[in-house]
Structures are given as structure tokens and as C-alpha cells.
């Protein structure tokens, strides 16, 4: 079961890609942290992540966890965004057999999962080919 309260707490990150930037050393954290692991500062400003990047690595899921069975085969990758932040995400709207490291991707707002037929629908980010 997906708790609607947990889903709700992650809305700024999942919907608007809000990250925390350390005001002392400039390191960006996504999701945000309370203490910077670079300089121990507790002062952060909210920044929005870059919406495009490059696929650094990926795997193809053929045996999916519960709730994702209809989507197999699908790709999950690590994308290095143009602001240097690395993010893990599903990569969709592509032929997984033709996906390559180095592909340019952009972010889109998508449905991530549903809590069955009657539960909450969770939205968030996924990546698609940039052109």
C-alpha cells in the first residue's frame, strides 16, 4: 500500500524537482538533506533541477516489482543533468534495445505508480528522448 501522506511529502521533489543547494559550498542535494555532507552547513536554498541531461548508465527491467508488470521491459537509468546532479529515473517513450549511454534525455511529468484500482495515483518525473 502506498501511503498518501508519504507521497504528499515528496510533492516538491516529484512535481517541481526542487533540490537543496548548500549556501556555503554550493553542493546540490536531491532529495534535500538537513546537513551538507561536504561542509556540514545547515543552510540551504531551494533550487529547481535542470530538466535535461545525459544518460550515464541504465538497466532494463524484465521482471518487475508489483505494480510495474504492465510496463516491462522498461529502462531505469542514472541521468546526469545539465546542472551536474545525477538522478535515478525510469526512461520511457523509447525502444529499450536502442537506448544508449550518452543519449540526451529530457524530463516529463508522468504517472509513476498507482495504489491498485482504488488507491492514490502517484505522479512524478520520468525521462524521455530529448528530440
Amino acid at each position, binding site marked *: 500500500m502506498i501511503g498518501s501522506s508519504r507521497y504528499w511529502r515528496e510533492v516538491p521533489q516529484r512535481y517541481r524537482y526542487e533540490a537543496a543547494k548548500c549556501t556555503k559550498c554550493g553542493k546540490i542535494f536531491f532529495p534535500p538533506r538537513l546537513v551538507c555532507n561536504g561542509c556540514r552547513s545547515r543552510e540551504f536554498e531551494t533550487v529547481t533541477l535542470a530538466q535535461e541531461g545525459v544518460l550515464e548508465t541504465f538497466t532494463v527491467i524484465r521482471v518487475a516489482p508489483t505494480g510495474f508488470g504492465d510496463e516491462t521491459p522498461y529502462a531505469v537509468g542514472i541521468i546526469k543533468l545539465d546542472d551536474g546532479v545525477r538522478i535515478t529515473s525510469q526512461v520511457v517513450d523509447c525502444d529499450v534495445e536502442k537506448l544508449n549511454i550518452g543519449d540526451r534525455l529530457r524530463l*516529463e511529468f508522468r504517472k509513476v505508480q498507482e495504489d491498485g484500482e482504488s488507491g492514490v495515483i502517484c505522479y512524478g518525473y520520468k525521462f524521455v528522448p530529448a528530440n
Partner: protein
Amino acid sequence: MDSGIIGYGAYVPRHRIKVEQIARVWGADAPSYKRGLMLREKSVPTPDQDTITMSVEASRHAIRRAGIDAQKIGAIYIGSESHPYAVKPSGTTVAEAIGATPDIHCADFEFACKAGSEGMFVAMSLVEANQMEYALGIGADTSQGAPGDALEYSASAGAAAFVFGKEKRIAECEHTYSFMTDTPDFWRREYQFYPRHAGRFTGEPAYFKHVLSCAKKIMERSGTTAKDFRWAVFHQPNGKFPMRAAKKLGFEKEQVEQGWLSPTLGNTYSGSSPMGLSAILDVASPGDRILMVSYGSGAGSDGFIWKATDRIKEVQGLAPQTREQLENDPIYIDYGTYAKFRGKIRKLAN
């Protein structure tokens, strides 16, 4: 009127199914469907796309063109017959995603295929009445046609969003007019998965009566004729109806072709004429006058007369254009994949 469109955007899913794929499964004659409905293929949403996701993407494009802070948007109205929840608004999710909460008014509209234009009408009216600086009107749908029904060849997915304001307009609104009657040509009852329709009754007494009456009245009231417009867009339940309506009203093919998306997009229901308008705004020049007439079963039509301003050329390239999304790199799928994507197969939960 002092208000008008200051930003617009559309979203088209990448997946497509051709008429031949659907006809083959049901033993129908594809050439006669293609000829009769003037449809070649339609867009298909993936399981992770719905009215909310497409509305967010279209709205982001519209806000980029408007060049405004989303926090200044005072209202979001989404028209759709496929809101993902029966009880929980689509508008709040879209508002949160574009960064427009919490000082905002939201409502979800439903009026078959006309809900998008009514969202536009109400959003623009609130700006006109000085209730707010900006308002967002959206038409979006992931419409369903029952397997084997004629609607299955046309029911598709897409969204268009429009930011309304008084300053930095890209299109002024010169006139509006709406025409409504109680006409039961298409409906879906509570808890029913697929809509029903009254076959040929959806034509003359429904679509044509409302679209033609609305178009004639708005032109009469504004003292215009078809010749005064550079462009026109009508609701597109298929490829044939809007072309026939245009001809009856005295419009030439060149005036309607740019916004005539249905042959390769299908019927995006609440997104239909709004998406056609977005395709026209992509190429419009300053001074171009545009007639837009929507249609929703049940039944009614909203009419708008828009006039492009000098700013139109500045914003056209700021976000993906509608025909570019429609024509670039579509992913074609077979009927089996389509049936899976649209939840038409009974299966165990996984």
C-alpha cells in the same frame, strides 16, 4: 475585450495506432473507414499518461510562452471527460506541478468534448472582470471508445493550455458567443467505462446544428464573414465533420487546414479545437483573425474570435509546436499493445 491569450502550449503523446490495425481486429474495411471518417491514425496515451500529466506538460509550454511567474496565475480550469479521479480534482495536481499554489482557484470542468473551451471561457472572463491578473484554461483528454465501436477509430489523447491576461497578449479576443440545447447525442453514465452515442443522430441535429449556429451567430454579431478570417478551427470528432462545417460556412480549405489535426491525431475530445487553435497560433502572423468553434455533446458550442498581435512571432519558437509534436518520431503500435495501454484487457493485478 481587454483580455486575451498571452501564452499557449500543446502536448501530443508519441504513440500512434493506424486505422488498419483497428479495422483488422474487428473485420472492418479500413479503406472505407479512412474515406468515410477521413482518419488515418490517432494518438494513444501510454499507461503513465493521463489528463493530469498532459495538462502539466501543455501548461508548462504555455507559461514559457507567456513569460510569467506561475505564482501570479489566479485560476486553473481543466476541461476533460477523463479526469483520472472520480473524486479529487485534476486542477490541484496541475497547479502544484507548475508552482501556482496556494493562492489560486481550481475547478475541473466536464461537458463531453466542449469542456476545454468552457475552461478557456471562464478563465478569460475572470481576467476580463479584473478578478485576477492571469488565469489558465486547459482542454485535455485520454478518451475511450468501446472496442469495435466507430468511436474506437477516433478517440485519442492530447492537451492544450492557454494563459489569459490583459498585457503582452499574443491574441486578442474580439468576440465570444455560446449556443446550447439539450440534445442527447452522446453520453456516459456513472460507473460505465465506455460512452454510448446515437449513431447518425450525432451529425445533423447535434454537431452541425450547434457548430453552424454558433459560427453563424458569432459572425453575425461581430459583423464578419468567412472572408474576414485568415484561419478557422472547428471541433474535430473525425476528419470529415469539421471540413464539411467549414465548407457550409463558406471557408476555403486553406483557412482550416492548419488547425485540422484529426486525420493523424484523432479526436482529443476536450483538447480538440483548443489543440487546433494552438497549431494555428504556431504559424499565425500579426493581424490574422481566427474563428474557433468547439462542440460538446449534450450539447453546445463555444465560439471565439481571436486576432493575433505583433507579439505572436516572439513566442512561437519558445516551446514545442503542435504539428512538430504530431509529426516528429511517432511510435507506432499494434492493436495488442494498444489494448494493453488502454486497459481493455481483463487480467490479474500485477
